[in-house]
């Protein structure tokens, strides 16, 4: 029972950071119909950047470093949108994919120059280094912190998309960008904002997960595969679906690692295939028109 509860919390924290990354990916896909393969690069840069900002010191700087990473990576995203993505909206899907793949390679090489080839680590701030005991079970308190942040991000995105005019505009640009422009909204600026927001979420996820992982070249590609699976399972473009997908993959990963370590990486693909066999457009996605 005890092990089960600990697994559950660890599952939630995995689901949590997967959700934050994937929400950014699905938001960008929803608004722009582009799968951004460089989305994982934003995640990796968030993780590397937090190691630079926090340095060798203990976790004290971590508090402001995490939001700073989200903002900085969001700004990088805005530059990428203005410089590259904007020219591709009328292109074919293959062209868009190749361009974002190119970005992934460029970002990966640049990261080698900036941060080298070795693995880096960073420690979490002291209040979260211990374990806490709830109802007789102890678990790493940082897992709970990640879960809480993910829930806040999810609620924040939901409130933005359903309660604010900016959120309505983002949903309107998904269904009809031309009609939105004809009502006076600068859709180009809106897409820059959406892309920056997506990148910022990836940067936030990278920064927040950094104390739990070893940060090394290659995590960009690992995370884009996971995030892509999460969003496809949930239904591309659906934030709620992404949350569901993240929980499913979190469970599959944690249980897989514990009970069938040799098969752990296979399990998530099995989940993907099972979901797509039943609902080809994902759990909460709409069938393409």
């Amino acid at each position, binding site marked *: 029972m005890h092990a089960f509860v600990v697994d559950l919390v660890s599952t939630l924290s995995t689901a949590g950071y997967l959700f934050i990354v994937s929400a950014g990916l699905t938001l960008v896909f929803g608004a722009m119909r582009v799968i951004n393969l460089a989305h994982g690069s934003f995640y990796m840069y968030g993780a590397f950047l937090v190691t630079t900002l926090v340095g060798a010191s203990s976790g004290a700087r971590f508090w402001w470093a995490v939001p700073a990473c989200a903002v900085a990576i969001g700004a990088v995203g805005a530059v990428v949108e203005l410089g590259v993505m904007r020219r591709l909206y009328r292109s074919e899907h293959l062209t868009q994919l190749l361009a974002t793949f190119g970005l992934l390679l460029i970002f990966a090489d640049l990261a080698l120059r900036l941060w080298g080839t070795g693995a880096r680590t960073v420690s979490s701030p002291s209040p979260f280094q211990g374990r806490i005991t709830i109802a007789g079970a102890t678990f790493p308190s940082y897992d709970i912190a990640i879960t809480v942040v993910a829930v806040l991000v999810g609620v924040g995105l939901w409130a933005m998309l359903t309660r604010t*005019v900016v959120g309505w505009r983002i949903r*309107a640009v998904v*269904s009809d960008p031309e009609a939105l422009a*004809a009502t*006076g909204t600068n859709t180009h600026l809106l897409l820059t904002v959406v892309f920056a927001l997506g990148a910022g979420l990836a940067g936030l996820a990278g920064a927040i997960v950094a104390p739990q992982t070893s940060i090394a070249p290659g995590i960009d590609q690992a995370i884009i595969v996971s995030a892509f699976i999460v969003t496809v399972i949930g239904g591309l473009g659906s934030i709620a679906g992404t949350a569901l997908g993240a929980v499913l993959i979190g469970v599959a990963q944690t249980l897989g690692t514990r009970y069938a370590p040799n098969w752990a990486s296979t399990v998530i693909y099995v989940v993907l295939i099972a979901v797509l066999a039943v609902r080809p457009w994902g759990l909460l996605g709409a069938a393409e028109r």
Partner: protein
Amino acid sequence: MILDIQDLHVYYGESHVIQGISLEMDRGEAVALLGRNGAGKTTTMRAVAGLTPCARGRVRFDGQDITRWPAYRTARRGLSFVPSGRRAFDTLTVRQNLDLAARAWRFPRRGWDVARVLKVFPLLEELSGRRAGHLSGGEQQMLKIARGLLANPELLILDEPTEGLSPAVVKDLGRWLDLLRGEGLSILVTEQNALFALAHADRGYVLEKGRIRFASDASSLRSSDEIRSYLGVARLA
């Protein structure tokens, strides 16, 4: 002059779809742009609104050159383009569609706000919590016109407004157009339904293969046999 189009040319890729259209419209006029399917009516209006690039020529709106302006700027300047077909923001509610349009920009206050729009279209008040994607064609048309009015335009452009509407709704549409004309709003309508458009317009232009073939006042266009047969309109018994 509210709208002054001079020698407009538009290409889709290689094909030269608009081949030198000139059209002038005074403030407060209602003008119909007629022609068969594929004559270039919609393309002309999209080019004026800034949704399709103009290759050559000039578009002036209220004296200002807007030829190269993007759509959101022409909308903010007071040219409201209402596209044809099911173009409501599907996943938003009716009310959100309206609020979005009302707050998209600090439009100069020329008297249209959400409350007034709901007074003119009371059905939208009843439907306000409904998802726009679930509306009927006529209800969507009403919503699109309401959205267009919330931009507080000086010129309202309606692209094929009767397309897909039942005869009863087309009649309603005619009433709305007359009401807006009564307010002194300048209206430009593209239509395949020539009789409908001419019944609610002061003047009309007939397009053929990207050029203007006839231009005259609405009543003489309606009574001209040549134009009636050209547009495929049967003589009224």
